């Protein structure tokens, strides 16, 4: 089997996650931003479970740099969050693969909660306003969209044989 066969889907899915991370609803209310799922975490978690040999903490960290400049955040913050999500996914890959959908949602909820808490705390240390909603909102929506992300990506992954 060609080791690079279909592997391009992973960066492509990350680019789609980047677009979704900044696409906006013109004239939408402020709090809409708190309901934006952390697409990058959902995508990297999926690949950590579905293709653990193709992704690693290092590649996740580098991908995070692009997310950081995209949302004008401090460099390295998204990187460590994605590296953590990928590491957990790879570490417990066999167990997570046996989980039901709702157990997976719960797992993503837990990981996203830790990640959002770390993110918001780091931003607070860099003098950006703390907000509990900014932790809770994305955590909830990330967990809720995960089944959809996993569904779409697993179909795509099967097509191109990642």
């Amino acid at each position, binding site marked *: 089997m060609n080791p690079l066969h279909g592997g391009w889907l992973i960066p492509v899915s990350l680019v789609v996650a980047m677009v979704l991370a900044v*696409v906006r609803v013109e004239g939408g209310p402020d709090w809409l931003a708190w309901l934006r799922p952390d697409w990058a975490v959902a995508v990297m978690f999926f690949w950590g479970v579905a293709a653990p040999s193709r992704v690693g903490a*290092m590649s996740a960290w580098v991908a995070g740099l*692009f997310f950081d*400049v*995209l949302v*004008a955040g401090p460099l*390295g913050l998204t990187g460590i969050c994605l590296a953590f999500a990928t*590491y957990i996914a790879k570490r417990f890959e066999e167990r997570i693969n046996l989980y039901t959908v709702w157990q997976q949602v719960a797992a993503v909820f837990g990981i996203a909660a830790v990640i959002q808490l770390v993110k918001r705390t780091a931003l607070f240390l860099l003098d950006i*306003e703390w907000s509990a909603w900014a932790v809770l909102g994305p955590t909830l929506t990330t967990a809720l969209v995960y089944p959809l992300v996993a569904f779409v990506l697993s179909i795509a992954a099967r097509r191109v044989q990642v």
Partner: protein
Amino acid sequence: MESLFGSRQAQVRPLLLGLTLASCVLLGIEKAGVGWLLPLRSVLATAVAPVQYVADSPYRVARYLVEFFSTRDRLMRRNTALERELLLMKADAARTDAISAENDRLRELFNSRARLPDDVLIAELIEVIPDATRREIVVDKGSVHGVAVGQAVIDSTGVFGQVVETTPITSRVLLVTDPSHAIPVQVIRSKVFAIASGGGRGPHLLDDPSVTTDIVIGDDLVSSGLGRRFPRDYPVGVVTEVVRDPTLPYAQVMWEPSAALSRARHVLVVLGERRDEEQPETGPGGVAETEA
């Protein structure tokens, strides 16, 4: 299987620790505010520019479609309306020119330097930073177009914000309503100086004016030009509420920005004073000299 699993885990842990350390170092540099990461940011931000355009494309396509399918009749009517508006604007501008010429003569009497008109560049919004606690946008003009960090950004109705980061093709603008933003202003009516801070989602306040300061609801605030970052006399906002509590040392003055911060798609980057005095042909503005 178990041993394979174990070995992978053993590899990842020091890596994760190293990455955490790397992130902490980067965050520390960011916190120190020394700007060592700016070149790296600029390169990465240039790389993500296509993503910003793609994310903005629904609005671009929608505007294009609206234009494409609007009827000839509607376009004609719009054209007529715009022509009329242009005529009125020109008349206004002519009057303003006369006034500013008179102003310059008066300034000459006082031995002050005549104020030059500012050179501006039209830029279009391509991204709104997706964080409800921050007020920042990204526009489609960068250092190759002459945009530099610190330049003021305005729209047709007032001061928008300032450029805080540039790449060759895009730049990030901090809006006047961002919690980390403050702009020196002057109340037109009473000539009082103040500093207008952004409040993010909350009310935007003037920085601690004393209770006796002459400010009332409805006062217009213009940029004072102190601090030399913003050009002076551009509208910044309007005072919406004044609370004078005798038990407090300061009055609470709330203001609302006059620029259409959440609706504008096009903004003007103020590149600096127009350099007309040195060789008008080769000047970056390329605008013919008309003043006497």
